[in-house]
């Protein structure tokens, strides 16, 4: 079989293709791609620490590319970012220690899988419910670059107002013209870092809503600061896992190559397709991801290896289905837009 750098060409092509699908999803929805990687690697039979470490390295690479898009828009609060990095680093270290302990007693695979089922299932159910409900509230926050965003118009959620009212010194002034207790910021950072280290996710899909809903940071600043922070948390997480040889470049390099291309296609599709039209597919995809991991666990429990294959097919099928729906809708819209322009020219 053909090999590149000692790795099967088929495996490289598989990861590049999977990365492309994930990239389209990330570029289009602005969230969600990265937490499909670790479950997929678990299902493919990689050790939990390799699945988590390689997932973190992939998140790191993806966030570098996404942050470059935001750098000139002034949507990064560096002071908040540095505080988040401090809290997140501690959280990642504790999460990693917890995972290593679970691996030592032989429970890592089960616990990480169950946590994923709950996390993916919970978010999937929430997104699906919001999408079916319709309306302007799309049930999530976007990572997309929003050049027209006005920081002064931001509404501060009730919970954030409550948290801002706790004046435990020292108080920090943040972009958007408000103050929050240093300890509240560190608590949010630690909790999201814990999840990052434990599950191998960037934490962005939890931290960014947390910055907005809990701390009251305006959405554009929450997005930019979150991405800035993910670069560091992903990098630190990757480094910590790489120290024990748990980052596999034969996974990360092709995944990143595919996802960077897919993210451009997905981002281009956002200007063509209504996100609400597709959002229900996204929620369903997350639910299918949760089901896939659950099926794998059942397969392990009752010694039925065929369920591993079923699980992998469900994960890949879900990613393929949704990214296909996005691509199809984008091409259809492009052609509809082009028709009025081409018809007169045909005369």
């Amino acid at each position, binding site marked *: 079989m053909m090999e590149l*750098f000692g790795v099967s060409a088929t495996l490289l092509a598989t990861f590049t293709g999977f990365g492309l699908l994930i990239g389209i999803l990330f570029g289009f929805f602005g969230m969600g791609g990265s937490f499909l990687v670790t479950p997929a690697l678990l299902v493919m039979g990689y050790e939990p620490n390799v699945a988590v470490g390689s997932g973190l*390295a992939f998140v*790191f690479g993806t966030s570098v590319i996404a942050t470059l898009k935001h750098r000139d828009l002034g949507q990064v609060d560096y002071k908040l970012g540095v505080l988040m990095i401090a809290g997140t680093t501690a959280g990642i270290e504790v999460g990693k220690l917890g995972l290593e302990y679970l691996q030592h007693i032989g429970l890592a695979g089960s616990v990480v899988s169950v946590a994923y089922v709950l996390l993916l299932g919970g978010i999937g159910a929430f997104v699906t419910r919001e999408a079916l409900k319709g309306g302007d509230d799309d049930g999530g926050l976007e990572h997309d670059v929003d050049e027209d965003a006005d920081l002064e118009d931001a509404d501060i959620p009730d919970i954030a107002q409550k948290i801002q009212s706790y004046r435990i010194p020292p108080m920090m002034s943040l972009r958007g013209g408000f103050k929050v207790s240093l300890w509240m910021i560190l608590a949010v950072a630690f909790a999201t870092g814990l999840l990052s280290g434990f599950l191998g996710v960037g934490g962005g899909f939890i931290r960014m809503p947390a910055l907005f809903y809990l701390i009251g940071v305006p959405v554009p600043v929450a997005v930019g600061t979150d991405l800035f922070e993910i670069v560091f948390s992903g*990098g630190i997480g990757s480094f*910590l896992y*790489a*120290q024990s040889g748990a980052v596999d*470049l034969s996974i990360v390099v092709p995944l990143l190559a595919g996802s960077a291309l897919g993210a451009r296609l997905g981002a281009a599709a956002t200007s063509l397709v209504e996100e609400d039209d597709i959002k229900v597919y996204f929620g369903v995809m997350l639910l299918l991801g949760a089901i896939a991991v659950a099926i794998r666990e059942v397969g392990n429990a009752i010694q039925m290896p065929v369920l591993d294959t079923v699980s992998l097919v469900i994960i890949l099928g879900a990613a393929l289905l949704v990214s296909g729906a996005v691509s199809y809708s984008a091409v259809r819209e492009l052609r509809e837009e082009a028709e009025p322009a081409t018809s007169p*020219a045909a005369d």
Partner: protein
Amino acid sequence: MFGIETLSGNAQAAVLVGIVLLEALVLYVGYGGLETWLGPRFRRVLEGRCAVLDALFMRCQATENGGVDR
């Protein structure tokens, strides 16, 4: 992969993270260039205004805005 297995501990970890960072930067610049160069042609193919081979050999008609790709 890439022969870095001989390194140990922190050195290997730093090289691994450096490789991912370098790849991300290269991909950002590389795909950005490709998008500028091939994007408009790819778009015309998707719109059904141009065949794939014509796009590859730059035989597509000029656009309605006077041939300005973007």
